[in-house]
C-alpha cells in the first residue's frame, strides 16, 4: 500500500492516468546493440585468450629487443571504436544534413544556442578521440564517445525532427 501524507484525489486520479510507457523519440536499439556486441566480443574466452596471447607476444618481443612497431598489437579495442564510428557515421551525416537544411527556419536565439552546444560537442569529440588514440582500450572513453554522439543526435532531432515520426513517438512528444 502506498502511503499518502495527504490525500489529493484529483492528483491521484491524474497520476493513475499517466501512461505506463513512453516511446523514445528515436530508435535507441542500434547503440545498445553496438555496445553489447563489443562486450560480447571481449567476453568470449577464446578471444580473450587470443588477445592475451598477442599481448604476451608483444611484451616478450619488447623484452628481447624486437622493434615495437613490427609486433602484433591487441587490435580489438581499436576495432571496437571503429565499429562504433561506423555505426554512427550515417546517422550523424543524415542528422547534420537535416540540421543544415532546417536551421534557417529556427528562431535565431534557439539556433545560436543549438550551434553553441554543437560546438561544445565537437570539442568534446576531438578531446575524446585524442584520448582514445593514446588509450584505445579505455572503456570509459568509449562510453563517452557514444554518449557524445547520442547528444549530438538528440539535439538535432529536437530542433529539426525527422519528417516521419511514428504515431507512438508523437504521443511521447505530446507528453513532454
Amino acid at each position, binding site marked *: 500500500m502506498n*502511503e499518502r501524507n495527504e490525500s489529493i484525489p484529483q492528483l491521484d486520479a491524474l497520476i493513475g492516468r499517466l501512461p505506463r510507457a513512453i516511446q523514445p*523519440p528515436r530508435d535507441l536499439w542500434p547503440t545498445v546493440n553496438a555496445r553489447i556486441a563489443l562486450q560480447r566480443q571481449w567476453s568470449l574466452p577464446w578471444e580473450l585468450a587470443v588477445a592475451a596471447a598477442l599481448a604476451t607476444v608483444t611484451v616478450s618481443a619488447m623484452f628481447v629487443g624486437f622493434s615495437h612497431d613490427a609486433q602484433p598489437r591487441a587490435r580489438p579495442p581499436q576495432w571496437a571504436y571503429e565499429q562504433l564510428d561506423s555505426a554512427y557515421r550515417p546517422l550523424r551525416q543524415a542528422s547534420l544534413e537535416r540540421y543544415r537544411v532546417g536551421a534557417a527556419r529556427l528562431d535565431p536565439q534557439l539556433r545560436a544556442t543549438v550551434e553553441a552546444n554543437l560546438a561544445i560537442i565537437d570539442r568534446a569529440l576531438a578531446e575524446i578521440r585524442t584520448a582514445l588514440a593514446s588509450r584505445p582500450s579505455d572503456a570509459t572513453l568509449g562510453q563517452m564517445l557514444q554518449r557524445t554522439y547520442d547528444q549530438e543526435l538528440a539535439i538535432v532531432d529536437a530542433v529539426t525532427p525527422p519528417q516521419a515520426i511514428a504515431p507512438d513517438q508523437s504521443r511521447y512528444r505530446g507528453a513532454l
Partner: protein
Amino acid sequence: MDAAIDDERFNGGAELAFPREDAQLVEAARGGDRHAFESLYSQHVGRVFAICMRLSANVQTAEELTQEAFVRAWQRLSTFRGDSAFATWLHRLTVNVVLDQQRAQRPWFRRVVAIDDAVEVVASEQSRVTSSADQHDLESAIRRLPRAARTVFVLHDVEGWQHDEIAARTGTAVGTSKAHLHRARQLLKEWLSL
C-alpha cells in the same frame, strides 16, 4: 552489494505473473542471443524510457539512461534468477542506473544539457495536440519539481515504491523521503490548481 541484484529479492512477490515469452527470451539472451535481447528491448523500452524520462526530466539524458539500462541488463542477465518478473527486475535496475548517473554527472555534460529548456519547448509545442491537456500538464509539472522531490514522487506515487525502499536506495531517512513527497504533492497541487 549490487543493488540491482538485491532488488529482485526485495520485490520478489510484487509481480508474480512471469510472461512465458519473457522467460524464453531471457534464457536465450543469457546464452548470447542478441536477437532475443532485442525482442526484450522492444517489449520493455517504453516503460524503461518512461522511468528515465520522469526521473531525469530531460529527453537526451533519458535516452542515454535507457541505453545504459539495457546494456547493464545485458551484462547482468546471469544474475536474474526468475523469482520475480523480468519487468520488475529491469525497472529496478533502471532506477539504479538513473540514481547512479545523477551522482556522477560531469561538468561539461551539464553545460550541454542546458539547452534542454529551449528544445523541449519546441518539441512540446509541435505536438501538444496529441496528448490530453491534463496529462501534459502533469508531465510538465513533474519535470519542474526539484530533483529530490521529483525522485521521491516518481518512485512512490508513479512507480509504487515504499518510503523505506526509497530511503534505502537514495541513502536518506524515511522521514526525509516522506517530506520530499509532501513537498512534491503540494507543489503539484498548486501548479495544477487542484
